[in-house]
């Protein structure tokens, strides 16, 4: 396929990494499993013996140990918990298990899979989430042995009403945490605290569930499981013994079209060519795109190509003159599908089903299809653009390969600096271990709200002085119903007293005077006010208008509140699985966009300006400080881009309110004296951008959050209240800001602040130390995309001084730290 003319015209192969086939290693079923459970697997799934790693995991579970599984995609992680769970219910009908999935779709998928195997064993199972109707909720609450839900639902609905779930909590034997690696950063911190609340409630009902965690490949699965659950002993099962077919991973770079400027062909068009070749070869293919827009474009192009091919027209870059035959189009539409967030659940299920049955051969998807939804296997995975991390790359690539068949991965790099850095050093991708996932459950911005929720569920009780707690309440690592996993009783007592003093908790001393109890007052649970994934605004619905047709008033899709100005401004073309709709009217308050099906020759792209400024300094230390900040996103207009050629054919204004986010930001200003340490302005500008990137990543490590929980910006003003440009999206604008005596900002992406930039700023010494270590730890010679970021290495005006960049960055780091008089 790589030899095809079409392919060689547009792209070149950068690297090919092949992994030979590996035979699976099998073990007998663990002896503790009852025969009927083993028989169910043989009957329903044709599994006579488990893989060795599955047997190992089940042995650990059988011995009552907490287990974390970190094997590759499609290595049979679900069986490792499903079999022991079914066995436990077969032994004791009162046994219960709680299964936590990061999304509702996954929970639904897993329940269906378990029902297939467990239905005959008398185990009841059900989902309990926002999509579950009330009567089904009652049934799940009363009768289901396995309750599948998500952390948000556990936090908002189940734990606050724990008395209604007493049967579940009293019998709780297992807690399954699937897709553990998604619980990182600030969201992971919330999940960790929800789990601590769960342990308290369980202790109250007399249970101590065993934990089974499943994770994709990350660098630290056991450490993440410990940090999330607060338990200290996990058995790690990471040796993958499932059979794997031979795998080829091909990295492809679009060809350079202009030798002088180094401009390359559009990566999406190359992805189209690559995917088309796979489609022609009859390979089931998943094409992962980085953005929703890319999914829509790719779906449309692939459908057009196939439709034309069916009627015998050769395709190329040129726009298509007329529509293909209707029958051919319909066939192509069912053959090539799109899949992304925003599609209605029904449509997503339909695409999943089409992929499983083989009706759909090619699916273009965002990371929405990355998690473990069962789609069977595909032959090839195309990555349109580098996903950004090695962990995500392997996770997506692992979707290819069905039961021992050869698997092909093709990654088409874009011209982004990060992608090109991968092209320059492909061994960094294949050779290095995957990224760490970090979480900080003790971040007060996260911890305190959950302590309030916990106190509302069950009051905390601590001895006042000298008195000690009853033994049964302090044992076994989780602190019983009066403790908090991972925090020593004494520190928890001090913190509760401090919260009591501030009136955040209500403190009472019992009549004997030896115990203090802490309550959260109020009839409604504080959980209502704590949103684990940031503030929730109502979604926009995309409503079709077709006055004379049955489709009139049909809801086509949903769009997040934050994305509405980008995709639903009047005049926007809203693409949906290759079809195009024009937005006629946007009802901002009613949260509806009215669209009409059009046959558009172009698509639209909103122009987006993201800026940040300090509204009110809280703490100023020399040339550095911390303050309340405003992040503003304006959408002044949009571009019209022609399909296929992507040429700009017009412009339109957008008149929508700016979106404001109020948060906390730390800043470091480059004083004239510090600026003098790197005298050449363009070298200094490049170094400033590198420092901003370094501080951002060092702060993420220091605060144990996800890189995406923080943002960085560079501003030239330096005055309080002046705007700074947020990186890394608008590199040229950022470069402009970096000249002169710029200020570097580091802000929390979460509305209201998540305590991250504040924590980093207060521990500036550690922050700068980490930044230096990051710089020194990188194996590159002069500073690369990984250590200094994309902006700093951008191939434009700042690029000519790469030899000095690393030294310059170091100098500036020292100068900035000197200006931060802690």
């Amino acid at each position: 396929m790589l030899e095809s003319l079409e392919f060689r015209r547009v792209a070149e192969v950068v690297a090919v990494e092949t992994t030979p086939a590996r035979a699976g290693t099998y073990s007998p079923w663990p002896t503790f499993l009852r025969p009927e459970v083993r028989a169910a697997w043989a009957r329903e799934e044709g599994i006579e013996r488990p893989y060795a790693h599955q047997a190992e995991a089940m042995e650990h579970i059988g011995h009552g140990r907490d287990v974390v599984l970190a094997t590759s995609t499609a290595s049979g992680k679900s069986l490792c918990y499903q079999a022991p769970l079914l066995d436990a219910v077969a032994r004791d009908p009162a046994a219960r298990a709680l299964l936590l999935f990061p999304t509702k779709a996954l929970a639904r998928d897993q329940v269906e899979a378990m029902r297939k195997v467990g239905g005959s064993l008398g185990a009841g199972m059900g989902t309990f989430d926002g999509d579950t109707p009330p009567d089904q909720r009652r049934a799940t609450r009363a009768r289901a042995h396995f309750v599948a839900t998500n952390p948000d639902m556990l936090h908002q609905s189940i734990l606050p009403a724990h008395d209604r779930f007493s049967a579940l909590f009293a019998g709780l034997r297992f807690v399954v945490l699937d897709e553990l690696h998604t619980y990182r950063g600030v969201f992971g911190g919330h999940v960790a605290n929800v789990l601590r609340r769960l342990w308290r409630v369980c202790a109250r009902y007399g249970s101590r569930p065993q934990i089974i965690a499943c994770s994709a490949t990350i660098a630290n699965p056991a450490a993440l499981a410990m940090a999330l659950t607060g338990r200290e002993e996990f058995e790690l099962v990471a040796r993958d013994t499932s059979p794997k077919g031979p795998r080829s991973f091909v990295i492809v770079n679009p060809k350079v079209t202009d030798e002088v400027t180094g401009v390359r062909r559009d990566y999406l068009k190359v992805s189209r060519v690559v995917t088309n070749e796979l489609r022609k070869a009859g390979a089931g293919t998943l094409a992962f795109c980085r953005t929703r827009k890319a999914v829509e474009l790719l779906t449309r192009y692939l459908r057009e190509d196939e439709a034309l091919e069916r009627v015998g027209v050769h395709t190329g870059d040129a726009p298509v003159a007329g529509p293909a035959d209707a029958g051919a189009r319909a066939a192509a539409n069912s053959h090539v599908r799109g899949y992304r967030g925003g599609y209605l659940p029904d449509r997503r299920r339909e695409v999943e089903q089409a992929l499983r049955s083989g009706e759909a051969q090619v699916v273009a998807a965002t990371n929405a299809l990355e998690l473990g939804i069962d789609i069977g296997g595909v032959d090839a995975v195309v990555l349109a653009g580098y996903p950004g991390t090695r962990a995500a790359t392997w996770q997506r690539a692992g979707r290819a390969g069905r039961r021992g068949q050869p698997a092909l991965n093709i990654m088409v790099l874009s011209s982004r600096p990060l992608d090109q850095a991968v092209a320059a050093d492909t061994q960094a991708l294949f050779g290095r271990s995957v990224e760490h996932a970090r979480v900080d459950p003790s971040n007060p911005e996260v911890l305190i709200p959950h302590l309030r929720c916990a106190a509302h569920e069950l009051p905390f009780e601590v001895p006042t002085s000298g008195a000690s707690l009853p033994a049964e309440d302090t044992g076994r690592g989780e602190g019983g119903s009066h403790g908090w996993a991972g925090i020593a009783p004494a520190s928890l007592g001090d913190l509760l007293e401090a919260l009591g003093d501030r009136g955040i908790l209500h403190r009472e001393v019992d009549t004997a005077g030896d115990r203090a109890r802490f309550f959260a007052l109020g009839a409604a649970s504080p959980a209502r006010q704590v949103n684990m994934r940031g503030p929730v605004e109502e979604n926009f619905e995309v409503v079709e208008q077709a006055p004379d047709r049955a489709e009139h008033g049909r809801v086509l899709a949903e769009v997040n509140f934050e994305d509405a100005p980008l995709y639903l401004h009047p005049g926007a073309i809203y693409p949906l699985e290759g079809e195009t709709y024009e937005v006629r009217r946007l009802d901002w308050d009613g949260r509806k966009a009215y669209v009409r099906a059009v046959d558009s020759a172009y698509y639209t792209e909103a122009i987006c300006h993201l800026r940040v400024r300090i509204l009110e300094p809280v703490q100023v230390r020399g040339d550095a400080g911390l303050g309340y900040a405003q992040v503003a996103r304006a959408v002044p207009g949009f571009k019209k881009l022609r399909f296929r050629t992507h040429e700009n054919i017009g412009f339109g204004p957008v008149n929508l309110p700016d979106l404001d986010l109020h948060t906390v930001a730390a800043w470091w200003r480059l004083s004239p004296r510090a600026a003098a340490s790197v005298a050449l302005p363009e070298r200094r500008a490049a170094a400033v951008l590198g420092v901003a990137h370094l501080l951002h990543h060092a702060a993420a490590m220091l605060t144990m959050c996800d890189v995406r929980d923080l943002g960085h910006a560079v501003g030239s003003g330096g005055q309080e209240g002046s705007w700074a440009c947020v990186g890394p999206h608008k590199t040229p604008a950022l470069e402009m800001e970096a000249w002169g005596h710029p200020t570097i900002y580091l802000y929390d992406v979460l509305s209201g602040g998540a305590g991250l930039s504040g924590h980093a700023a207060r521990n500036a010494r550690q922050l700068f130390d980490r930044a230096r270590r990051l710089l020194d730890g990188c194996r590159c010679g002069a500073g690369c995309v990984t250590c200094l970021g994309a902006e700093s290495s951008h191939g434009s005006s700042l690029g000519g001084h790469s030899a000095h960049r690393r030294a310059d960055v170091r100098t500036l780091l020292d100068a900035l730290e000197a200006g931060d008089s802690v």
Partner: protein
Amino acid sequence: MSLVARFERSRIARLQAQDPAVVDGVTGPSARASFTTTKEAWDRRPAQLLRGGIRGEPRGGWGLPDPRRLGLALTQTLGVGTTHDIVALDVETTGLGAGTVPFIIGVLVGDAVAKTWTFRQWTLRRMGGEGPMLEDCLAYLGGRRAFTLLSYNGKSFDIPVLRGRARRVSVDAFALRGPHVDLLHPARRLWDSGRGSCRLQRLERARLGVVRVGDIPGAEIPEVFWESLAGTDEALSSGRLPRVERHNAIDLWSLVRLCEEVVGRMGAPAALREALAAAHPRARQSPARVIQLLRPWTDNEPGDRAPAVGQRRLLEVAFRRISEAQRKHGDDAGLARTLEAWLVVAPGDPRASERLAILRERRFGDLIGALRVARSSREPCGRRIARLQRRLRSRGLL
């Protein structure tokens, strides 16, 4: 850095310092009792309390009915309770959702043997007192001989709340099992014509002629408790908490009086709606009693003029109930008469037509009559008509 130090520097601590009213609370040791409780014969202080809270004279006086008689009437008219003691129960809470705290529990206990009413009320004085209060209250109820629980909307609210809270504090709620009359439902059947609400206070005004004075609005009740946690004991006795206690006592009194009214109406209905309420399946009356309750209304219906729409709907229900009772009884002749009368009031009614056609065809062998009524139905059943025609043809009757 210690947790407390991190907290002190956090945004949450800053917000709290700026606006201490975000959450109000009291700190420091408190020697206040966990809860208070009263136990008094109804005709002493509670009755005085009642007189202070109601303007004028209630219809039927201030007194409470004989508990033994009331218990018997309950058994007869609503088919619940094999006991004769009655415990009316009402709970004041801090809201509706999960985590609602019941902070006043009032019971009015009618002793069938001693023929007395005893009033008991528990008031929560601090958060930590919830367990002891529930324990004391449920032990009191659990220690009594069997009783019928009487409440207003208690099946959906008061009892689940008490059960859930008892589970949270590990107190056994066994005392709350046993027969339970939730008066809301029979009251709705009797008096809810779709206009106005069926709230207790509206009914007591309409049925007992009671107007409360100085009563605390229901919406204010939750905040009274939060307020009471912060205040001193002196402030409590002069604050709004006693008003909530009085509100709770009046609720109990009117609950028992309304119960008397409900069973009275159901025992001797004065209108078709009341007779229907008394004959409702939930009242578990015997088929004979259902017929006895409803026949006077259907028999008296003059056939020569059409009844009003509302009245016709009620009549249709009455005919349906009677016909069901007669079918259970196996009274075919009576059933046929009822269905015929039903079809006079509601010509072509599909249910009546169908049942009458079946009855004539199968029981009486009257194929012509069956065909006539089957044809006259508003939703004729093609298969039945065809079958009847076939049978008639085969006998040469068509």
